[in-house]
């Protein structure tokens, strides 16, 4: 069963990497979250089907064991996708540090002062880009000049709760 589970999540994750390069050719940068969700689901389903074709072990598994295998494989795949998204994709796609590095890099040996940098890249464009991305992804809505939270559940809220909890536990905030 271990081999079966490992096959599923490794194939799922490899497909996640491949598919996200394809999916984002059709999704603009503002629809990052929808693109990620689509990639995740596509890779999960395709990977599962490929695993079934490649492994004949699953014929011998009882329904409960088969279901258990799928659940475990899904949890591990979710962890893989989460790690890749935050550690690589997020940094390459949305990171402020990378954007600053890019702007500084374009000036070459001449360099740039912080004043010149903030004229090109400041609160206005940083916030606007992110708000547009959140609206295009359906996390927020924009109506009559106001932004509202469209869904009660949002990954970002979960992220904030976890960070707030960790800050309390680690005594960085009381």
């Amino acid at each position, binding site marked *: 069963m271990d081999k079966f589970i490992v096959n599923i999540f490794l194939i799922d994750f490899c497909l996640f990497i491949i598919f996200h390069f394809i999916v984002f050719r059709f999704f603009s940068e503002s629809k990052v979250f929808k693109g990620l969700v689509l990639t995740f689901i596509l890779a999960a389903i395709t990977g599962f089907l490929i695993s079934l074709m490649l492994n004949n072990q699953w014929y011998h598994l009882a329904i409960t064991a088969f279901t258990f295998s799928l659940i475990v494989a899904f949890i591990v795949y979710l962890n893989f996708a989460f790690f890749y998204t935050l550690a690589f994709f997020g940094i390459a796609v949305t990171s402020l540090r990378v954007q600053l590095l890019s702007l500084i890099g374009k000036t070459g040996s001449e360099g740039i002062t912080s004043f010149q940098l903030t004229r090109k*890249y400041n*609160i206005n464009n940083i916030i606007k880009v992110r708000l547009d991305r959140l609206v295009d992804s359906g996390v927020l809505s924009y109506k009559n000049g106001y*932004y509202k939270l469209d869904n009660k559940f949002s990954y970002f809220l979960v992220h904030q709760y*976890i960070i707030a909890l960790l800050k309390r536990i680690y005594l960085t905030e009381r």
Partner: protein
Amino acid sequence: MIFLFLSGIIFLITFIIHILLHRFLLRYKIVTFKSLSIFAFGFILDLGGVIYLYENVPINNSEILFTPLPVTALILYVLLSLNFAIFMTSIYLKDQSPSAKLVWLVKINSKAELKEIKHYFSNSELIFKRLADLVRVRWIKKEGARYKIITRGKLIIKFIYFYRSLLGWKITG
């Protein structure tokens, strides 16, 4: 299942030890990423536990509780540790994701205008702090009042451009 429980329990124990270690170091005003290396010791412990279980628990593929899942259990521990480390970067860098903060602000205010939202951010928080981080990790250097990219930063940006070209995107940030 028992293998997964083992990895889960060892991860929790390592997490608790990490909290205690961090609080201890905090008394001496030491805050360091290196404390996360405790999870490497946790992995060694997990590996030992998995090997012990594999050799001593009778293999019974029909009983989910005792089905041997050594590789899955070890990979799960590693992933939980890595994902936890990612969350801890916010703690160590004292950073907050602007997008997460935006969603949070809209939620607590139930609705918000752009000009209200901007009041909660500053160039100091969004830009100057990050510039200082880039200097500290030696991706850029500061010469007088000017920031210049250096070798490590050039390599990073080349990789990022390549990665984004595969996605068909330009850099926006």
